[in-house]
């Protein structure tokens, strides 16, 4: 098949202040292919795509669509060139149905009053003529009177024409929105590409995956031939990812070109035809997926050889350090965010927590840390410095917990909003944990020493220890936070999404730190989103779904699919049933 170029980028450069986000990037996208744009966080993937989608304007360089140079100044321009982007954060109106979200913002077709008047006049004249020629005796069916032409009085024609400006106004104000059949067009598109979705459902009732589907249909509805998906799999379960990929392949078969931004290698290998690798804003290479492998891609991405193995040692002398039983908590609306959660975290072991984002992971860790109100249940800490004497942690404030001698460290999900103070420098951030020591006045000497140690040992890139942490990159911010939390020699270390947004090297630094703590006999609780990492790193993995524990699996024997199903709240028996069902569907498909 002859390949035709859909989009070509030539020498695209974008600079933000002193930072070069993209430098002289050349890229081609063919019709009917899936191109992965691969790169670490901060490598300029999203910036580059935003320039195609009209969010940013390139400082330099040219964009060609179908061989013609184009100027894309706004998302509107992008749509005019049939380019649509599905952003990482969905932009939907919660109280509208899926269909309404999709047709929202649609331009009303041109409405020319004069032309329309002509049309009505001609129509009425034709009907009047038909009326005159109509002979009732020739039509004898029961319902024939319904088909009979009607006579339009001149006054009626006049009235209709006089009303036209108001019709135009109504169209402009989108009163046509109230039409009952407005979703039909949308449904057609959904059927064409094999989306399974109820278009009458309200957005607030939808899962993340359904919302994403709505976004994709929206873009297709506007006639996009080139779709850009920004990290579409980040929020999906393995099963949902499979479903998404199925749809993407379907769209490809219909001749659409798709760009998918990602930093997950296995997905790149699975879905894409070609891979473009970006590193530090530069385009490194574009390769055919079939001619490469994960190791090679990683090296291109990082720029040097990296080993992607996490070594996992056997836990020794594991004792129950933290025991949670029957923990239930409500959110502000009175909905259960934690429902009868029971588990134990053991010393010298990493306990992973898997689940769809927002299943209660944050609330669970905050409840243990004394930051979230608990309705019922027990949280018990077995104090290793006191012959494992149980200490009740329930409904204690963080200060009370610390005063009890419990060495609980917590790396929260929101690094700059909770773990650190963005506008303060490294020294003052170190002081957060220690400032209470001494009388009246602050001691900045030991925090400064600690900051210097962390900068040195964890290789934090910072101009000085007096730089505001907000100005550091994600990876360095995380090193500062984890470094501080580890420095207090914890016995329990909780980390929520500690590698989110980090590049590969920083991620591995964090994994190694967690492993080191495990070796030291710390009970580590690790909330993660990348199932591959969870399976490689953790000794046990607890899966939660909508605030309930749906299963605890052994990290050494776990498989991704099982965890995925547990994440959606299906027990293993149901799994089998579901498997059978899929099997049946597949067979049905074959029959057809």
């Amino acid at each position, binding site marked *: 098949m002859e390949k035709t170029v859909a989009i070509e980028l030539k020498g695209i450069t974008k600079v933000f202040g002193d930072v070069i986000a993209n430098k002289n990037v050349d890229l081609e996208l063919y019709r009917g292919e899936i191109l992965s744009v691969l790169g670490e966080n901060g490598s300029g993937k999203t910036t580059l795509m935003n320039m195609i989608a009209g969010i940013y304007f390139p400082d330099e360089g040219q964009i060609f669509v179908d061989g013609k140079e184009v100027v894309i100044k706004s998302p509107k321009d992008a749509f005019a060139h049939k380019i649509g982007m599905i952003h990482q954060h969905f932009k939907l109106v919660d109280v509208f149905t899926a269909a309404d979200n999709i047709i929202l913002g649609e331009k009303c077709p041109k409405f020319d009053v004069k032309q329309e008047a002509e049309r009505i006049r001609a129509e009425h004249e034709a009907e009047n003529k038909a009326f005159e020629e109509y002979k009732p005796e020739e039509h004898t069916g029961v319902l024939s009177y319904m088909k009979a032409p009607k006579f339009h009085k001149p006054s009626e024609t006049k009235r209709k024409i006089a009303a036209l400006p108001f019709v135009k106004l109504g169209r402009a104000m989108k009163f046509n929105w109230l039409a009952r059949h407005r979703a039909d067009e949308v449904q057609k598109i959904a059927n064409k590409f094999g989306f399974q979705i109820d278009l009458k459902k309200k957005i607030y009732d939808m899962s993340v995956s359904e919302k994403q589907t709505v976004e994709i249909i929206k873009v297709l509805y506007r006639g996009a031939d080139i779709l850009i998906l920004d990290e579409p799999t980040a929020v999906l379960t393995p099963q949902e990812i499979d479903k998404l990929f199925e749809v993407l392949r379907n769209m490809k078969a219909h001749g659409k070109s798709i760009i998918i931004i990602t930093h997950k290698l296995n997905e790149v290998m699975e879905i894409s035809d070609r891979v473009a690798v970006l590193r530090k804003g530069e385009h490194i290479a574009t390769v055919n997926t079939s001619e490469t492998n994960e190791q090679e891609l990683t090296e291109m991405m990082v720029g040097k050889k990296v080993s992607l193995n996490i070594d996992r040692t056997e836990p020794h002398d594991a004792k129950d350090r933290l025991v949670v039983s029957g923990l239930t908590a409500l959110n502000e609306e009175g909905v259960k965010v934690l429902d009868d959660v029971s588990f134990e975290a053991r010393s010298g072991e990493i306990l992973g927590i898997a689940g769809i984002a927002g299943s209660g992971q944050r609330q669970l860790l905050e409840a243990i840390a004394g930051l979230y109100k608990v309705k019922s249940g027990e949280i018990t800490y077995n104090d290793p410095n006191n012959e494992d004497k149980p200490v009740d942690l329930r409904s204690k404030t963080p200060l009370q917990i610390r005063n009890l001698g419990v060495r609980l460290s917590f790396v929260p999900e929101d690094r700059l*909003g909770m773990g650190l103070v963005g506008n303060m420098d490294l020294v003052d951030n170190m002081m*957060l944990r220690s400032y209470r020591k001494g009388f009246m006045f602050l001691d900045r000497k030991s925090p400064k020493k600690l900051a210097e140690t962390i900068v040195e040992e964890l290789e934090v890139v910072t101009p000085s220890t007096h730089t505001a942490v907000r*100005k550091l990159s994600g990876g360095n911010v995380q090193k500062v936070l984890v470094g501080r939390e580890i420095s207090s020699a914890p016995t329990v270390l909780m980390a929520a999404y500690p590698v989110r947004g980090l590049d590969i090297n920083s991620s591995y630094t964090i994994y190694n730190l967690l492993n080191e703590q495990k070796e030291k006999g710390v009970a580590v609780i690790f909330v993660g989103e990348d199932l591959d990492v969870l399976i490689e790193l953790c000794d046990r993995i607890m899966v939660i779904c909508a605030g309930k524990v749906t299963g605890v699996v052994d990290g050494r024997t776990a498989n991704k699919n099982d965890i995925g199903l547990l994440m959606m709240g299906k027990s293993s028996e149901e799994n089998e049933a579901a498997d059978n069902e899929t099997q049946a569907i597949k067979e049905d498909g074959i029959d057809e």
Partner: protein
Amino acid sequence: MSNMKNSARTLKEAKEPLFHLVKRQQISTGKAWAIRIGTIIFSILFISVLTSIVFRESPFEVIKYMFEGAFGTNLRVNVFFRDMSILLIIALAVTPAFKMKFWNIGAEGQVLISAYLTIVCMYYLGGKVSNGALIVISLLAALVGGMAWAVIPAIFKALWNTNETLFTLMMNYIALQIVLFSIKVWMPAGSGQLAPLPYGNLPHIGGGDYVTSIIVAIIITLFLFVYMRFSKHGYEVAVVGESQNTARYIGINVPKIIVRTLALSGAICGVAGFLIAAGIDHTVSIDTVGGRGFTAVLVSWLGQFNPLAMTVMSFVVILLTIGTTNVMVNSGVANDFFAEVSTGVAFLIIIICEFFIRYNIKFRKRVENDHPAVPDNQQQAELQEGGTAHIEDENEIGSEEVE
């Protein structure tokens, strides 16, 4: 690595906006202050030119009148420093709350209620107890009043998250009405003004009523400087202001800090009210504070919540107010409308300068370079580290402007 295609590089001058606003990565404190001082001088020049155009005087004349108004005679110097120190004390009072992002605009009411309570003590106890005892009692009453007016909104904020700005504003009106009511009670007939009371007045140190105010202002400035920068309390205030979540996370009792800080704020307002009532006016009216509670907000912001910088700013603000009034008097204008207009213009210029300290305006480069200024790989790697933070900054432009 990258295959340079110079032919493909074209500048898109016509299609891009003329300039960008770029958030400054880093600006040295010295440079920022140089810009601020420069702006202040510019704003004085600007309003003198403005005034000279309106009143057909030479701009130099105007500037001369301005400084004469402030420092022309001994009495004027006296008044200048007295007003400046009172304004500075009120500005210092609101600062800890602002540092905590508690937008207290109730300094007006807090000062007024404490001045009022001072007068209440003088009115009812005057002549019955010794002067010394009366001063102590009225100081205590002033402190309690100022604190109450600040702590009540703080408690509501801490427990029920009410809007502190509206709450403190309403507290101002309550204080105002209490004063109006009391004056009606004390002076049922006549001018409706309370004559200065002869009891419980602060002794004049060094022959003028300004010296006490200056001494108190210096003490409070130094105290607050140390408190904010080197004490645990100050650190806690900063953490709560930056992020309440972080504060909770490290075990700070947020409601306690809010109430404690506002108690301090109110107490300092109490001192200001006491100085005004017992030291200067010896009476109270609804004009006792005369908007200084609001001007203090401006001083605190312009001084970047730094007590030492606020000293400079209160100097400038008083110079502008007194100076422009004197210009009006010398121009034979009976009212101070134009004085207020020109002071407002000057403040506006000073506030706008903050925007330019935060953002850099970059005009489109017209030079067609072969290569943009691309640093070598090493440097670029370092730049990239800060990359994400910077891009976020770019997005913040809209929200930052609101401040």
